[in-house]
């Protein structure tokens, strides 16, 4: 029989997380700090609205680009959060999670051989999506010295004549790093000068712990060259509802809508009704969850300080990314031993790119009680490693 598999797909590596997942799944009593989704339930008033939509028989397709009400609420939300206006009729597309927006956004703009700049460590799907769209990915290895922010210098060095898209993944999974206005202004200057499109994945925008998140669309000249991606998963604890959105220039949104229309049809209807409620009346829920995350973040950083574990202070998302280089183990060895010896699952930094080597991702989407338990074990583990190396 012939080999039916596409070369392009075959060349893509399975997610490094998957491999680790299989080990964890076999252990019964392991506690996990490895999850990339909120521990909160979706707030009840949002779930209730979803149930109500089902009761009223709202079980049909919506328009391809999403419910008009939802697109209007998204436009209102961005107006009040970022002070930028999008036309709900032509510049907003409701997608199946932010993930779909990443995929079709890249497919809508990439020609074979175009280069896509991907700063790493970052979310696992940019690279495969870029490859499948026919792009040549160009990786920037972010540095802890810069708090894993993207610097103008790093960007300049990665740009060639073929560069078309810069992916901007902040607030960042897995590092928790953010980009502040001054950082974004420097990036914007180069992007405009070199005529590059930005895909800004701001799925964690609602979860920052310094000042309010700044989006690159707020910077002059950037709205017209940015695909803004956001969604409901992280801010409203709605991961399973699979709902996100993209905002951008109408020419791009139009082409994205075309792919979306043929591949997906429309985002889930129940979720869209629930999301309208989330945007209308969910601000307080977000604030409450953000406060809880921030408390846990402070707790973890304080514990790391007490155990002398190096970790830059992250101001976004719900991850900390401590450095484990002092132990002379690779990230994967560290995570595997920690799992086997102390039964706590964390994710090796290398799952998010080679530059994650020497780091591990610890999620604080867990109750304080859980975190305390896990941190107690981390303390044991670290002490053991330190005494081994003496």
């Amino acid at each position, binding site marked *: 029989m012939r080999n039916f598999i596409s070369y392009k797909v075959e060349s893509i590596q399975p997610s490094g997380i998957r491999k680790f997942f299989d080990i964890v799944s076999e252990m019964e009593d392991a506690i*996990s700090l490895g999850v990339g989704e909120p521990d909160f339930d979706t707030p009840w008033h949002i779930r209730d609205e979803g149930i109500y939509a089902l009761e009223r028989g709202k079980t049909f397709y919506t328009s391809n680009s999403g419910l008009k009400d939802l697109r209007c609420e998204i436009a209102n939300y961005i107006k009040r959060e970022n002070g930028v206006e999008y036309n709900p009729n032509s510049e907003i597309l409701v997608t199946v999670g932010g993930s779909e927006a990443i995929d079709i956004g890249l497919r809508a703009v990439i020609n074979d051989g175009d280069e896509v700049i991907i700063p790493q460590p970052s979310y696992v799907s940019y690279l495969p999506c870029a490859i499948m769209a026919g792009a040549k990915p160009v990786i920037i290895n972010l540095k802890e010295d810069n708090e894993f922010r993207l610097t103008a210098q790093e960007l300049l060095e990665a740009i060639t004549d073929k560069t078309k898209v810069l992916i901007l993944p902040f607030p960042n999974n897995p590092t928790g790093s953010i980009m502040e206005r001054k950082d974004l202004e420097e990036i914007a200057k180069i992007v405009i000068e070199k005529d590059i499109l930005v895909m800004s994945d701001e799925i964690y925008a609602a979860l920052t712990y310094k000042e309010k998140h700044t989006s690159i669309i707020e910077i002059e000249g950037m709205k017209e060259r940015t695909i803004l991606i956001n969604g409901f998963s992280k801010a409203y604890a709605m991961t399973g509802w699979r709902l996100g959105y993209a905002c951008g220039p109408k020419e791009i949104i139009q082409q994205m809508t075309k792919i979306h229309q043929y591949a997906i049809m429309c985002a889930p209807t129940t979720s869209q009704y629930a999301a309208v409620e989330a945007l209308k009346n969910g601000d307080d829920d977000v604030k409450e969850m953000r406060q809880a995350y921030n408390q846990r973040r402070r707790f973890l950083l304080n514990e790391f300080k007490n155990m002398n574990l190096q970790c830059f202070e992250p101001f976004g998302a719900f991850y900390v990314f401590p450095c484990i280089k002092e132990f002379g183990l690779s990230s994967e060895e560290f995570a595997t031993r920690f799992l086997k010896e102390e039964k706590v699952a964390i994710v090796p930094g290398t*799952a998010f790119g080679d530059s994650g080597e020497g780091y591990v991702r610890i999620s604080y989407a867990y109750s304080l009680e859980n975190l305390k338990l896990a941190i107690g074990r981390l303390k044991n583990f670290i002490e053991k490693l330190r005494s081994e190396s003496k």
Partner: protein
Amino acid sequence: MRDELLAIIEKNSRIDFKELAVLLGHSEEEVLNELTNLEKEGIICGYHTLINWEKTSIEKVMALIEVKVTPQRGKGFDHLAERIYNYPEVKAVYLISGGYDLMVILEEKTLKEIANFVSDKLSTLDSILSTATHFILKKYKDHGTILNKEEKDQREVITP
């Protein structure tokens, strides 16, 4: 800091000031001062424990009593409310808008004791027009806490 501090200790009154300081990102001294102030100002009125008595062998009966009254000249409802809340078996008294005036929450060991309280002590007070007693059969949620809830993390153990 005040709002966030109150939000934390409303859910967990046992948390100590050192941990509070870490969670809030303030110094221990600041947190301790704020706690003292909140107590002095009567904003923090106590540190109670939420007990699910149904799971113990101790018998307790609880009732909500709707009370209609004639307010007294010059004293309004406050004087009467005081006469009621001074009984130790009365757990709470609220002034209510709508069809009746006072809501009295009563806790006793037996049904009979509640009946006696209503007939002997409450109904006989001057200016009480009528009472309606509702017994609590089951508590699902109390003080924002869902009782008998099974906490299980339903998430996949590792996700990107």
